[in-house]
Structure formats: C-alpha cells, structure tokens
C-alpha cells in the first residue's frame, strides 16, 4: 500500500530523514516510535506531501506522491493532481485542526461536497453516519469550541474517514489530550484497525502500539534503527538505543 524508498529530507542544515525505506502492506497497522526530533512526524508529512522530499520516492497504492511519470520522466505534480492524490489519504493531526467556524457536521461534510462534488444532502447524511461511527451522533451541530479534546479528535477522524481514504496517517493523535480523554480516541482508532484500514501511527501510547500495531518501527536521528512485531520490540529489542528509549516510556 505504501512504499517509501531512500527518502531524504532536510530543513536547512538539519538532516531530518536519512535514507528512509519503508513498506506498508494493505490492512497493516504500522506504529512509528522514537524520541521527539527523530523524524516521525516529518516522515508522515512527507507521505502526504505536506512537506516536499529532497530525494527518494514515495508511492501510495502504486501512485507516486508529489511526482508523476510523464513518458519515463518524473515530473513534479501540479496542484490539481496533488489534491487528487491527497484526497485519498486521511491525516489526523496532533492538534485536531478542526475548522473552528463550522459545526462538527459541516467539518465532516465539507470535503465530500467540495472535492467529490457530492450533493449537499448526501454529504450530510454521510457526515452524520461517520460521526455516529465515532460515537458522536449527538454532537452533529456542535462547534469545535464546545467539544472536549477527545470529541474534537474523533470529529477529525470522522472528517478524514468521510473521504473513504485508502490509508490513514495519525500524527500523535492523543498527545494534546487530557489523560482521561485518550481512551476514547484510541478506541476509535482500534475499531478502525479492526475494520481493516491501513494505518501509520506516530504515537507515544505504547499500550496501543502493543495491542493494535502489526509492526513497530523505532526511529532514531532520522533513520529506522530497528523494527519488528510488538512482541519482539517490547520484549526483546536488539538495539541498545531502542532498549534505552523503551525503558523511558514504558
């Protein structure tokens, strides 16, 4: 589903991603862990072209991201093409980024109407169904400011799901939440994983990683230092740095 090949990314002199290779299979849940500044978030943003990569290639479902093949020559995507590609990938942000001037229903219905040109009534029915799916059937007409952090993040998940994405990217979805609200968001993500969604999740929630993740990747200074099943990574990490990191967060 996702293929990342020798991707490099720098911000000025800071080399954030170093020759990253990654393959994610359909229906697989991959969890990225690592210290802050290790490049987890940047990798996620690169897959969605929120950041342009300096070198390497990224494919999602066989489609190259940010580039297209024009008679054997790779060319940078024009905006229209990039928008089409992005519409098929859901992204959930640490800080929710709900549209604050719209109700929960409007937040979720916006992209289907604007991007897929779905009739308004149909889009609103879809939005209501998606909100019900994350347990917010009673909050359709609430504005984000009237919702708790956990509820906002679930609206954000519903908003992404309304576009029927092939892949969902989660960037520390529970880091901005009060501890008692983390559970409801993780529950929604777990449900999504059970339904067979392909997911890449950046998180510090090791319980979630262990329970839901098919594979754990440990990033260190912009490179994937170690990867394995949750069982391997949590019980028998091979690298000293992985052991040190896990001992701090577990």
């Amino acid at each position, binding site marked *: 589903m996702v293929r990342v090949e020798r991707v490099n990314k720098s911000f000025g002199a800071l080399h954030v991603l170093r020759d990253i290779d990654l393959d994610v299979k359909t229906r697989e849940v991959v969890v990225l862990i690592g210290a802050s500044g290790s490049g987890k978030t940047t990798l996620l943003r690169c897959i*969605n072209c*929120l950041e342009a990569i300096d070198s390497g290639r990224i494919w999602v479902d066989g489609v190259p991201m940010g580039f297209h093949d024009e008679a054997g020559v790779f060319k940078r995507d024009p*905006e*229209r093409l990039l*928008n*089409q590609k*992005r*519409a*098929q*990938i*859901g*992204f959930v*942000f640490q*800080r929710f*980024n*709900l*549209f*604050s*001037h*719209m*109700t929960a229903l409007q937040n979720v219905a*916006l*992209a289907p109407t*604007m*991007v897929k040109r779905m009739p308004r009534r149909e889009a609103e029915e879809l939005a209501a169904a998606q909100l019900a799916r994350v347990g917010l059937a009673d909050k359709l007409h609430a*504005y984000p*400011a009237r919702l708790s952090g956990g509820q906002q993040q679930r609206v*954000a998940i519903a*908003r*992404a799901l309304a*576009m029927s994405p092939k892949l969902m990217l989660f960037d520390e979805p529970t880091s901005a939440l009060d501890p008692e609200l983390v559970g409801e968001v993780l529950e929604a993500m777990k449900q999504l994983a059970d339904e067979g969604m392909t997911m890449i999740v950046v998180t510090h929630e090791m319980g979630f990683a262990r329970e839901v993740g098919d594979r754990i990747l440990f990033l260190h200074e912009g490179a994937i230092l170690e990867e394995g099943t949750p069982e391997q990574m949590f019980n028998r990490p091979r690298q000293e740095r992985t052991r040190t990191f896990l001992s701090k967060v577990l």
Partner: protein
Amino acid sequence: MTYTFQFGVVGTNLGFLLSGIYATLYVTIAALAIGAVVGLVVGIGRLSKRRLLAALAGAYVEVFRNTPALVQLIWVYYCLPILTGINMSAAVSCTIALAVNGAAYMAEIVRGGIQSIDRGQVEAARTLGLSHFQTMRKIVLPQAFRRMIPPFVNESVALLKFSSLVSVLGVADLTYQAQVLSTTTFRPIEIFTFVAIVYFALCTVLSHCARLLELRLAVSD
C-alpha cells in the same frame, strides 16, 4: 468672555446643513465598498507566492499610505482627467481617491487577518484534497473576516471623518455646507460645533452596528 453663543443659527439653517449628510454618506459608503474590494485583492496579492504580484501589491500599499490623503484627492481631481481623458465630477474624483487610499489600509487589515489564521487550518484542508483556492474561500477567509471586523470598523470611522476633505474640492458634504453657512452668517463656532456632533453621531451609530455584527458572529467561537 465677550463672545455670545447663538445656536439659533443652526436651527434656522438645519435643513441646509443636514443636506450635506447625503454627500458625506454617499462618498463614505461608496469609497468603503470600492476600497474593501480593492483592499481584499491587494491584501491577498501581498501574500502571493508570485514575487512580482506581491511586490506590486506592496508598492501600492506604501504609495497610498505614505502620501497625504488630501494630496491624493487633489491629484486625482486634477491629474486623472488629464492622464485618462475622462472628465469626472468632483464627487466621483473624491470617491475614487478615498477608495484607493482606504484600500491601502484595508489591504493591511486583510493581510493581518489572513496571517492570523493558524497554519493547521490550511494543512487540514489541504490533506482533505481541497485546492488552494477552495481553502482560501471556505476556510481561511471566513475565519479571517471575523477578525477583520474591528480594524475594518476603525478604518470605516476614519474614512467617514476623512470624507470631510472632499469639501476642499467643492463637494457639498457636511463640512462644505458648514463652511458656506459660516461665511454668510459669521457663526463658525456654533455651526462647526453642531457639525462635530453630527459626525460623532454618525460614527457612533456605525461602531454600534459593527459591535452587534461581531456579537452575532461570535456564537461559534
């Protein structure tokens, strides 16, 4: 104090004085409307990734902010007909001058409003597949407009007061009528005191309407 106030002169000429309100409001509202549209375009232009466009918009703002409004007024009235060959009434010239001047300030208000919107809002829209234009129209501008209301009202009040400059070119606004009446009655103190009160009342009504609008829009925040 040897001066005796005789406010009776205001009462006897009330109709004549208040007839100036029409020109004052006409020039102000027309200049505001044109200025807001031009200001929106220039303000968005300043944020463009196209360097030339951003530079042109920047130059526009600098030129009209850094020259006196009265000079712009006179310049438009005398020079524009020569340059374009189109003859315009004083009222139209004044409206254009106040509009382009106001637009420079509006552009800065628009720019500030847009820049105050969290980047995350734009990123969220783009990850959903919305285009740059759709993001601007549906996400950024609606939120920015709300934040632009208070400075926009400031600018509107300033423009209403600046409109008194049009009297210099003989447009029969509130100030012009007051000048005419002063020279015939020799009662400038009473007359201009009254005119100040009228301006005050107009501006107060304007700010209160805006306050109501702001409260209505604040529901979702």
